[in-house]
């Protein structure tokens, strides 16, 4: 049974071996010249300003959480749509209930002012 997974093992072995070989070769044969730019975490991109643990407005999190919440819930529509015919009327009602529950949350968030920026 485990033999079926042999291909994966071979794949893992070779990919690891190639990466290790490349780093080893580079280390062996490459020149070592240190500079300030080189020792930065990101060679290209934003130049870091201030401490890393900066405070962010909580609204970002709120919106993000709401987004993830609804986004993921919507994902459930996909399997339902695929097997819509098989599930029939029951599936339809079920989905309406599901949407109803989502709407409750939506109304709640809305009324609580979670969707307003200010």
């Amino acid at each position, binding site marked *: 049974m485990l033999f079926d997974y042999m291909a994966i093992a071979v794949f893992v072995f070779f990919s690891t071996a190639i990466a290790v070989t490349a780093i080893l070769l580079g280390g062996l044969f490459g020149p070592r010249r240190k500079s300030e730019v080189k020792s930065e975490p990101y060679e290209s991109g934003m130049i870091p300003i201030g401490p890393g643990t900066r405070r962010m407005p909580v609204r970002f999190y709120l919106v993000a959480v709401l987004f993830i919440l609804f986004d993921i819930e919507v994902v459930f529509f996909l399997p339902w749509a695929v097997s819509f015919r098989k599930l029939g009327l*029951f599936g339809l009602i079920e989905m309406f209930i599901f949407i*109803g*529950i989502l709407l*409750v949350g939506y*109304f*709640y968030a809305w*009324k*609580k002012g979670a969707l307003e920026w200010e």
Partner: protein
Amino acid sequence: MTTPVKLLDFITILPVIFLAAWACLLLLVDLWVKHKRVTAYLAALGLAIGLGLLWYQAAWIGNAGFNHMVVLDGFSVFVNALLLLSGLLGIALAYGYLRRMGIERGEFYPLVLFSLSGMMLMAQAADLIVVFLSLEFLSIPLYVLTAFAYPKAASEEAGLKYFLLGAFAGGFVVYGIALVYGAAATTALDGIIAAVAEGRANLSLLVSGAALILVGLGFKVAIVPFHMWTPDAYQGAPSAVTAFMSSAAKLAGFAALVRIFALAFSSLSDDLIPILWGLSALTMLVGNLLAIPQTNIKRMLAYSSIAHAGYILMAFTAFGNPGVAEVSIAAVLFYLAAYTVTNYGAWGVVILLERAGDLGLEIGGYAGLGRKYPALAACMTIFMLSLIGLPPTLGLVGKFYLFRAVIAADLIPLAVIGVLTSLISAWYYLRVVVNMYMRTGDPEISPEPWALTITGLMAILTVLVSLLPGWLFFLASQARLNLF
């Protein structure tokens, strides 16, 4: 293999559906309700209707629903009735408390209802997936409730700790379920039984899965060493939430534990007995020992709650012994009922004495209560006696049944540990009594009618039912487990 959904399927979980729907509606209604006590009364109404539906539903005892994912049996009806009553008690205690503490927010009540519907589903779950689902369903509102006193740091911290550790423990449950599935190729309890009976199951894998599920549920009911969150969460959470949490969550957790282990894993009993033995002994010891140095009543009661989980687990240790299982399950149910009554009463007193800003929670602050409020002190004495297990209280009767089950299972050393730790427990419980009667002080209570009513009622019940415990034990022993 799978049958289409019928009306009967809905009837099997009718109170759960109703309660969840009622909670959704309440969440919306609350947006337009100005006086939050209306929400409280509506929530109580929902619970009352839930009880009515439970009564109605009882006619269908003996049915499984949704392809055996849930069952409706005497056990679930008993537990669900207790859960609904405990919800009512929790709301009654919270009614005045939340306003006094300045945290009267309408979400409290829907959250309680959501949590309760999860607990009730858990009591009916006949499939490990449903167990996990309902575990999360009951836990998430509890996390929120624990942090309900925001922006109080202690409450938020407690909520976060509870959430993180709950998620951590939830992971073990899922892992356990996966192992069980790997071993038996099913997550349905009856399927597991069949697999074991037919010899298809990988038993060592199954035992590992069962052990991990035990860890997850043990976390919920605060079994040592999965208990560490309990004191912090109980202390940080608003007292009304703690009262609800310590009673209802324990009920639901044990309901699931009993159902899964007594039915699906009863064949693993011989493998699991040493584990349960060790866990319950450890829980009784640690819970009682650590309660002693506590000076905060909430923390003390938290450890007491841990200790009581140990006693209940003790009676359940021999769950696989067919001669004992029935007695021990009845004893567990009786004790849960007894503990619910006593626990709510004790928390009622705590709530009456608590003042905003975490004041009035020191045990030393109970000094002089006996002189100033003799009736309240008498009630508290009754609860403390009941928690120790002294007559004339429910605690004694409950412990009697527990020990009877343990001794029937021939686990004498465990019983000895139980008795000894009960003795130790007298130390810290009686300290409250000593403080109330033998020290002078000037405690102040907030005379909230509902909390007072509940406290008095629980005290009366604690004594009265202990004098006539037969009917309750009869009900508990009639509450049979089944999968159909």
